[in-house]
């Protein structure tokens, strides 16, 4: 042991609670699979030329074994040694030694300590329970030998294309990556799931609905080689595909049908954006265009209504319309939310904390936050006429007549009114520029800003923006809207003149006239603000304390904006989807993967920053990202690649052999069982029962729910829908931010006030109560039973078809679970059925109640027993699980 080494050790012992801190390391242990590395490196050990790569080879070793005491966290740092930065690792320590002397392992304390034979010197220390393998030590030695080069954080480097390794019997690149890794770990993949399971899995994953009995029969009996691929193609072409994947995207957009905040006003046209997303997925709008339209569709040359409607993405931000709210404060909050939502959605970076100070962990400065913010600071909310099919023609015809009559009504007072309005507009602008001169005018301005289009979901600053638009540039629609507002809320000092001009009578006539005009549905969107706003850094996040002026720009750690373009939202969107962008494609494919395997290749799908998890299969992630871009950003093509893989098609049965080694299924030696989403729990029950209304699109609906829930909102507005609207897919259920639909909350609907990248999947008694006792689910059981009895007729013991109850049971299984029942299940359920029938025979009242309004075909006790049986099927763990 050299003197250097001894000093290093002494230093450690000097530290008062060194042992305790050493021990703490244990907690940071995350199961990683260094064995593979060992294997890879073992293969390579003879090839001295093989370059060691920091991110791929070295970082996993350092992160799992060293960083807890020699990393970023200052409070836990030992011996003042920091190994996550080259300059620190290669600097002489206070103890006089140097951890890494590039090119010279023999002089590097790191190498001496990890290869020490003396237990007292060995790193990592024995107390941590960690021990480097010979192969890991070898990686470190060769890395130092080769110059100990570091690399930037993996996610900031462009994806690297690596040829998928060869693997026995697999053609798919996905399988080759996954299986070569499994082979290295000496783990067998699981066999393919049986056809029933596979069909239900892929149908739920791609459409959010269970397969119909016909679809099950067709697939199970299809002996063609490409039977499965045909199913996948059919599902990708289904209109329900867009519904299922829209819900995935709406979690990121944090969509809802109300404003949020205490008063939570309605947004009756918010659904136009939801519909846009459904349509975009259905027509497989390439993800790059999908991105551009949502961030900047309005800035495209001559934008179409659909392109503008995409910007509805940015309209899911909360709006505070409560009197007394500071207009600018809440506008700033909206811009901050848009900035953070875009960063989470496309970059998987949590940048919100940089609002007030530099990011504590990632290389994101406060200045950079405001550079990103600047892109959105100039974007204002606006709604526009976006007629639904059939609305345009009658409206256009009626509009001319309406406009003529309107002009006639206004003509007598046109001149004095114009003068008054000009005065009003001037005072409003003055007040905005110099608030605090007059309470009345401050208040008037505030109301214009807050309450414009309240309960109509119109943009808050639309009115003010019209005032800021020169008269000559205003559209007729803008002029009319502003005039209507002015007439309805005149300032007190105009009241005399309004009386003189008989404005209140005029208003009544105008309103009556407007009612005659046929309806045209509007859509939320964004527009460039009429006057450019200068963006400052907000000192400590205080918008009133303007720091330095910043221009729109991106993060220094990422590639620069494309040259020669104006730095606006459009440039930002194009930058995000530029082929060399390191994050967008990776983030998107990782989230698709997460939907299909329950966890992403990067488990922290919300955070690709340095505090996020490293990818479990980095090369596969890169391969998928590159394929995604190369394949024209087609979501359908990407999903098809994944669901076609053997990895996806494996059974989800537990692997006792891996329970300790890989409890979280990181290595993907099997599929996983996933509890269905809140919406799919409902949709599946309705689908099995035949109640489900499969209409695609349209405004939100309000299925029945307990009264106490709707009373929780600020204003009680939950009038249950009638008819088929009670049975629409969960996607269409009205989402009130302050009191979301109760069943969805019980099944982990995320909070719509911020972007959510992965939902929780809990399992609670509250869910059991919901499925057992909610009248909605009992109604589904009633209809389910009626359907089964209707579809399988006959009596017991009749003919070669066998026992009718058994046939009915098979039918019910097929409808609810997409498979046939097993012998033990049949036996158990038939016993239950007989028992229930006896029970209902002795309890006719219950039977009658249970059958109320259900048009059945047989004796009431038998029918009631079937309802009780169907309710059991809908409550099964399997019924709410994608296997």
């Amino acid at each position, binding site marked *: 042991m050299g003197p250097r080494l001894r000093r290093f050790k002494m230093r450690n012992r000097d530290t008062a609670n060194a042992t305790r801190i050493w021990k703490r390391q244990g907690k940071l242990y995350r199961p990683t699979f260094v064995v593979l590395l060992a294997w890879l490196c073992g293969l390579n050990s003879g090839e001295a030329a093989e370059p060691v790569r920091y991110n791929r080879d070295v970082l996993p070793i350092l992160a799992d074994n060293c960083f807890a005491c020699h990393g970023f966290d200052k409070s836990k740092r030992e011996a003042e040694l920091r190994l996550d930065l080259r300059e620190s690792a290669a600097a002489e320590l206070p103890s006089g030694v140097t951890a890494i002397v590039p090119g010279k392992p023999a002089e590097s304390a790191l190498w001496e300590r990890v290869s020490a034979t003396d237990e007292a010197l060995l790193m990592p220390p024995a107390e941590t329970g960690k021990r480097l393998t010979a192969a890991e030590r070898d990686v470190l030695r060769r890395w130092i030998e080769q110059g100990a080069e570091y690399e930037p954080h993996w996610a900031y480097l462009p994806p690297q294309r690596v040829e998928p390794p060869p693997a026995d019997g697999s053609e798919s690149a996905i399988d080759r990556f996954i299986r070569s890794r499994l082979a290295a770990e000496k783990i067998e993949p699981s066999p393919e799931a049986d056809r029933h399971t596979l069909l239900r899995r892929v149908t739920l994953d791609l459409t959010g609905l269970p397969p119909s009995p016909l679809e099950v029969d067709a697939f199970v009996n299809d002996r063609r080689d490409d039977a499965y691929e045909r199913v996948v193609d059919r599902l990708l072409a289904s209109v329900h595909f867009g519904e299922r994947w829209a819900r995935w995207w709406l979690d990121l957009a944090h969509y809802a049908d109300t404003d949020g905040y205490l008063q939570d006003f309605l947004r009756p046209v918010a659904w136009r954006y939801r519909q846009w997303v459904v349509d975009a997925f259905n027509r497989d709008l390439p993800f790059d265009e999908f991105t551009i339209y949502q961030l900047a569709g309005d800035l495209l040359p001559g934008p179409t209504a659909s392109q503008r409607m995409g910007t509805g993405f940015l309209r899911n931000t909360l709006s505070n319309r409560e009197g007394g709210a500071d207009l600018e404060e809440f506008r700033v909050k909206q811009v901050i939310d848009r900035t953070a939502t875009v960063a989470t959605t496309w970059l998987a970076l949590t940048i919100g904390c940089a609002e007030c*100070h530099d990011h504590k962990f990632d290389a994101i400065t406060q200045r950079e936050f405001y550079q990103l913010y600047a892109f959105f600071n100039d974007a204002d909310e606006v709604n526009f006429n976006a007629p639904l099919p059939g609305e345009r023609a009658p409206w256009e015809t009626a509009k001319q007549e309406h406009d003529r009559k309107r002009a006639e009504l206004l003509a007598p007072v046109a001149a004095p009114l114009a003068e008054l309005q000009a005065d009003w507009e001037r005072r409003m602008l003055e007040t905005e520029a110099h608030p605090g001169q007059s309470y009345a005018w401050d208040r008037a301005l505030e109301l214009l800003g807050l309450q414009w289009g309240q309960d109509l979901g119109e943009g808050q600053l639309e009115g003010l923006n019209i005032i800021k638009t020169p008269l000559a540039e205003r559209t007729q629609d803008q002029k009319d809207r502003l005039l209507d507002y002015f007439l309805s809320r005149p300032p007190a000092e105009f009241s005399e003149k309004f009386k003189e001009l008989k404005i209140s009578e005029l208003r009544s006539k105008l309103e009556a006239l407007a009612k005659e005009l046929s309806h045209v549905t509007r859509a939320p969107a964004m527009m460039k603000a009429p006057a450019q706003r200068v963006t400052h850094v907000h000192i*400590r996040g205080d918008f009133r304390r303007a720091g330095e002026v910043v221009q729109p720009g991106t993060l220094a750690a990422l590639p620069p904006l494309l040259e020669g373009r104006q730095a606006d939202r459009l440039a930002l969107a194009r930058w995000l989807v530029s082929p060399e962008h390191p994050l967008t494609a990776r983030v998107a494919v990782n989230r698709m993967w997460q939907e299909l395997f329950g966890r992403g290749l990067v488990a922290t799908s919300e955070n690709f920053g340095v505090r996020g998890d490293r990818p479990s299969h980095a090369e596969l992630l890169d391969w998928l990202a590159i394929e995604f871009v190369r394949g024209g950003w087609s979501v359908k093509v990407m999903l098809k690649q994944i669901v076609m893989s053997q990895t996806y098609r494996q059974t989800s049965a537990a692997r006792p052999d891996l329970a300790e080694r890989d409890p979280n299924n990181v290595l993907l030696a099997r599929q996983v069982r996933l509890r269905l989403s809140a919406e799919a729990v409902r949709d599946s029950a309705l689908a099995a029962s035949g109640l489900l209304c499969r209409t695609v699109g349209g405004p939100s609906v309000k299925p029945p729910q307990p009264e106490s829930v709707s009373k929780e909102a600020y204003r009680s507005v939950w009038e249950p829908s009638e008819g088929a609207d009670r049975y629409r897919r969960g996607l269409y259920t009205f989402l009130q931010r302050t009191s979301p639909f109760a069943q969805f909350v019980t099944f982990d609907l995320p909070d719509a006030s911020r972007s959510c990248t992965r939902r929780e999947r*809990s399992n609670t008694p509250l869910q059991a109560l919901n499925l057992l006792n909610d*009248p909605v689910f009992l109604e589904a059981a009633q209809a389910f039973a009626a359907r089964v009895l209707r579809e399988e007729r006959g009596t017991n013991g009749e003919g070669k078809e066998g026992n009718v109850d058994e046939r009915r049971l098979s039918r019910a299984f097929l409808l609810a679970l997409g498979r046939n029942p097993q*012998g033990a299940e049949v036996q158990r359920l038939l016993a239950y059925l007989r028992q229930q029938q006896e029970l209902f025979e002795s309890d006719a009242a219950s039977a009658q109640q249970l059958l109320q309004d259900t048009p059945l075909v047989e004796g009431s006790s038998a029918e009631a027993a079937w309802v009780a049986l169907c309710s059991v099927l809908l409550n099964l763990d399997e019924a709410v699980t994608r296997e």
Partner: protein
Amino acid sequence: MNNRMNFGALPAGISRRQFLARSSHGFGAMALWHLLAGDGAAATQPHFAPRAKNVIFMFMVGGQSHLDLFDPKPQMAKWHGQPPPESLVASLPDPQIKAGTLMASRRAFKPYGQSGIEYSELVPHTAAMADEICLIRSLHCEQSTHDAAELLFHSGSPLFGNPSIGSWVNYGLGSVCENLPGYLVLISDDGRGLEGAGSALWGSGFMPSTYRGVTFRNSSDPILHLHLPTGISAATQRARLDALADLNRLHQQSTGDAEIASRIASYEMAFRMQTAAPELLDFSQETAATRAMYGLDAEQTRPFGANCLLARRMIERGVRFVHLLHTSWDDHSHLDKHLANNCGMTDLPTAGLLQDLKQRGLLDETLLVWAGEFGRTPMGEVRRGSTAGKEGRDHHPFAFSAWMAGGGVQGGRAYGATDEFGYNVVENPVHVHDLQATILHLLGIDHERLTYRHAGRDYRLTDVAGKVVKEILS
């Protein structure tokens, strides 16, 4: 007919318990035992004689200001508006927090009770119970962001994915309450909603879902769908449950998924809750005096008061761990206004609960814990448009206050101390892990021996740290 006997798939001679034990992978025998608690299994034996049987864990999400509630710093007045000593803030990474000036609390403090411990005017009702309370003024941790600090406080780790303390307690001791979950969660807020780590705070992490906290709604109808729907008799309900359990078990056998055992347990618990919960939620037998004590009849105190009263009723019925969360105390601005509001909502019901437990003789066996994830800076913070008089304070993990009462802790005690700024602990530091170790100790659990095996490793609530604070035990 006995459904359980007619269970064709089970090989003869195998009981349900054996069946479950054979077909479940990846979680420990103890966990299995508890999943079956509803079948009459006794609670696990503690390691040594417990001082408390139940815990009411009152968590103030966001981090309340110790300087304005519990830790008076009269000397601060003379430094008000001055920069803090460089030595104090030298190590802070954030230049903006560093640049803040010291802000003396505007709150008057005075001594309360026989013990004469000083409390702020914002918590007069709690303070009136000073002789029952052990106030810890020397808590500290190293996490300065909400998620991480809240997770640390609840699960012993700043990372997501670990079981909450309520899960650990139920895992360690089992539930003696057959008809209600052993871990219940009650949430209230001041209009700012639940922030931070959210439901991860009562999650069961790598333990089975059965150990997850079950949330009640803070409304007139705290548990939805408790009642049988029209046409479903009690007999049918029971039969449904039996059939479900049998079929789910068959499915567990074929998939090997241990989570199905949790689903079965959830259904059994739901069934028992149908009878137990309406009785639990029925306040009609509570006297007017009790209602007043919890502030049930005043709008401001009702949300938290109802949760406090529920907490008492829960522990009376044997619920092991009741978790109250009130949010938000994250006062970066408008500290005075927000603190007054939150204290107005919580102080009276908190004291009411303490007093009620005492008069009912329940305080001896119930441990109350009142805490947040960190304290607030001695420096004022100006942010988000806050102007003079509307300052706030930033996150401060280096020193903060919390209190415990009942179940084996000394009343009328103030433990630990901070420097003259309330910035650093100068006497008897108590790390969050130490507090967790102490809570477990009072329940008769040795925090070093309560382990759960996951992914080939034994986990503990207190990680590899934690020291029982023996000095505050009664």
